[in-house]
């Protein structure tokens, strides 16, 4: 044992340049090397990736990492390659046919292979993977497995089948935010009841938690304006509606000409979303007004301020959203603007996320009536036809699939069976609604607590948390005048002549970053 630990540290230093392991890393790595299945819950910014990067060097076969976002994957591969880790590749839809085939035929040359959950559903890759020895199967952002989580991805639920077909290699599931419930879900969905759990504290000592009660929306704007005239630092402002996200962004832009402000939400076209996100990463923007659609995969470590213009519908979302602040470990501030009148919002939101009875019945009637033509229909057509929201539609699809009904073979089902199915789906929906409402009440209770906010927040997830003497939370009292983050000194966006810009992009020396 002693020998292993000495050499593990040597491996760490010679390959990654760190002298010591950070909390949890070594324990997880040792269990992996012993061949156990491991569930690791580590707070963001604590080096989750070392937990599989290091074992991949020591294990004889291939380590597969499932990651939900292509940008995350590409970032990691780029970082690894630049640090000298060459046997790494990301397989995603950006590769062209030839590249893909080349990689597939040389899989054995890689130690670490990043894949998207979608691409694992493709037969071709699968055939090649099956011929390899898979020593470790890593599931990053594992909370995406859970339907109760806030970032549910249907393809993650198919990973158990993937594992089975790959001959059940050892599994490492990693996440930064998973309640006990979500942890159970992960273990259940992966069918690994004997997973070793390593749960580490998720409380972030460098983020001050504050709740500020306001009378109305105007006062929220006042507060934001005040803060943002004092601090010019990378800032996120979370909203629960697209409309207010846009309008507040515009109002703030008028009030704060010195800040570069933009908004981001799921209703924007994809190219615009990528642009805004990357502008922020690239320090072309200071403030982003956004919905919860923003953030996953954002690897920006100097976000200093996170506001909540509306409070989120569940504590998990809140923890994840404030967790985007201060990843570099420097002092950061979270401000939740609580307005009594906002209390009805989350309930409406939860309702709008789930299909109503009428929606379900309409879809079922349609499926039945049009069954013989359905092959000719793009599935999303049904969604637009009935103007069902994307979340509602995804819910319906997942439920249909779960009861192994695909739209193609629905013809084979008689009326009776469809009726029973409809009822089942309604039951699931009602259950989900109840659960989400209870989460909402949990959030509400936290907002109103007079105890330490950190204590009340984190003890729901873990037995312990770090008690802070200073700059803890608004209930314990903080001194804002001591919060002095480094200010950015960028100039407000200057309109630039198109000829100059085009020249800059394709011909001239680049001076954008200066």
């Amino acid at each position, binding site marked *: 044992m002693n020998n292993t630990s000495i050499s593990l540290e040597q491996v760490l230093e010679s390959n990654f340049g760190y002298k010591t392991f950070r909390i949890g890393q070594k324990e997880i790595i040792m269990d992996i090397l012993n061949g156990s299945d491991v569930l690791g819950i580590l707070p963001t910014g604590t080096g989750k990736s070392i937990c599989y990067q290091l074992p991949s060097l020591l294990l004889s076969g291939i380590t597969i990492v499932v990651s939900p976002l292509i940008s995350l994957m590409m970032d990691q591969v780029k970082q690894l390659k630049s640090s000298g880790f060459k046997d790494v590749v990301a397989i995603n839809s950006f590769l062209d046919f030839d590249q893909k085939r080349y990689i597939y035929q040389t899989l054995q040359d890689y130690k670490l292979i990043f894949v998207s959950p979608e691409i694992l559903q493709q037969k071709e890759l699968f055939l090649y993977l099956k011929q390899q020895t898979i020593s470790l199967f890593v599931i990053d952002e594992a909370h995406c497995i859970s339907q109760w989580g806030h970032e549910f991805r249907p393809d993650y639920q198919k990973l158990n089948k993937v594992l089975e077909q790959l001959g059940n290699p050892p599994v490492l599931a990693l996440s930064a935010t998973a309640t006990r419930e979500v942890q159970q879900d992960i273990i259940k969905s992966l069918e690994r009841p004997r997973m070793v759990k390593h749960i580490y504290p998720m409380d972030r000592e460098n983020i001050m938690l504050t709740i500020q009660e306001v009378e109305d929306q105007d006062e929220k704007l006042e507060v934001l304006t005040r803060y943002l005239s004092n601090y010019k630092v990378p800032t996120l402002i979370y909203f629960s509606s697209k409309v207010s996200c846009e309008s507040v962004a515009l109002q703030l832009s008028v009030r704060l000409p010195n800040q570069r402000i933009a908004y981001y939400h799921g209703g924007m*076209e994809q190219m615009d979303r990528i642009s805004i996100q990357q502008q922020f990463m690239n320090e072309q923007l200071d403030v982003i007004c956004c919905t919860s659609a923003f953030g996953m995969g954002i690897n920006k470590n100097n976000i200093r301020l996170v506001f909540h213009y509306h409070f989120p519908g569940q504590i998990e979302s809140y923890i994840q959203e404030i967790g985007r602040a201060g990843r570099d470990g420097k002092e950061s501030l979270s401000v939740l603007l609580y307005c009594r009148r906002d209390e009805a919002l989350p309930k409406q939101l939860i309702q709008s996320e789930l299909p109503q009875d009428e929606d379900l019945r309409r879809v079922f009637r349609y499926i039945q009536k049009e069954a013989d033509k359905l092959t000719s229909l793009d599935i999303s057509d049904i969604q637009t036809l009935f103007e069902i929201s994307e979340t509602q539609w995804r819910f319906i699809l997942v439920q249909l699939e779960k009861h192994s009904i695909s739209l193609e073979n629905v013809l084979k089902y008689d009326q009776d069976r469809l009726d029973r199915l409809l009822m089942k789906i309604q039951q699931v929906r009602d259950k989900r609604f109840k659960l989400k409402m209870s989460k909402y009440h949990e959030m509400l209770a936290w907002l109103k607590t007079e105890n330490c906010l950190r204590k009340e927040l984190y003890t729901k997830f873990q037995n312990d948390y770090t008690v802070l003497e200073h700059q803890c939370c608004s209930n314990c009292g903080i001194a804002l005048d001591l919060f002095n983050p480094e200010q950015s000194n960028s100039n407000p966006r200057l309109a630039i002549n198109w000829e100059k810009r*085009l020249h800059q*992009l*394709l011909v001239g020396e680049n001076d954008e970053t200066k």
Partner: protein
Amino acid sequence: MYFEGIILDCITEINENRSISGIFHLLVGKKSIQSVHDARLFQLEQYYGIYPTLRRIDLQAIVSNLQQKKLVDNGSKDGFYQITEKGRRHLIKFKKSPLYAYYRGLLYNGTDVLFFKRLHLLIQTYSNIRMKNTAFIPVVDDVDVAGWVKAFYKKNWSVTASLILYEELHKLLQGLEEKEAEVLVNRLSGYHHYGMSMDQIALNYQLPIHDVNLLTVGIIHQMMYQIHRHKEDYPVLYQLIRENNNNKFITKTANQTYQLLLERYSPETIAKIRKLKLNTVYDHIVEIALYDKEFSIEPFVDTKTRKEIVSVINRCKSYKLKTIKDNCNPYISYFQIRLVLTRL
């Protein structure tokens, strides 16, 4: 301003022959025979499919606003509108803007989006590779486009490649209004620089978001048109429009039927192979005929039959299927009439 102008133009041409739904389908480019037909019939081809992301409620809101401003009047039925005198004056103003002449909707529908995406990703790629940066987050998240840009890059690589691209673009954009060129270029991304989103453009130029959408499409159409007209001046950019997948135009299922037709199967056999109703296959064939001008309808309608149908249309002055059918020789089918209509 632009959006209002376009709607006014549509209402003027369509008058009370179609409801606002007809305008909606025209602008989003609904892939139905009726919509393409309407575009031709009312000579609004230029607007077909120029606003695919338009939502019905947004169109309704703008029309209601036009009504409040007394630019249009309620028609005889709900959902039908007429232009007013004030509206006409407004429309004349819009028709004077250069943008008005740019739209070529029916011609470039579908391919315009492809051109736009290729252009953006190509410029981002060249701009980065020029600075020896091969790892960047692509602004266009589209597998086909990414594959195309890669292939293009491999084929066209040279030290001066980005310079040539620059020169061609510069020349092309000089033919546009200053503001138009700026809107296009400000959205471009490159090395250590990410372009503006549509919302940012809207804010920066104080334009409604609809107008940014429509302005962009107009600019793209004009660029494509100029490249087509002067291929020899734009050897690099011409490749962005030359190699495109025309089949994107028709629905997937119609395309499958198309492939079988190319293998010389009869509609009856295709129906059997694909386990579809014969009428569904007929629908596909009409769809194909509508979008593919080269597609010959001769195997389904002989010359004599076609002439008869055309003469009935002229005599009855109607495009209504029922009317035409009732006045034709009974052996002529609806399918044949619809096919002939696609060739008018």
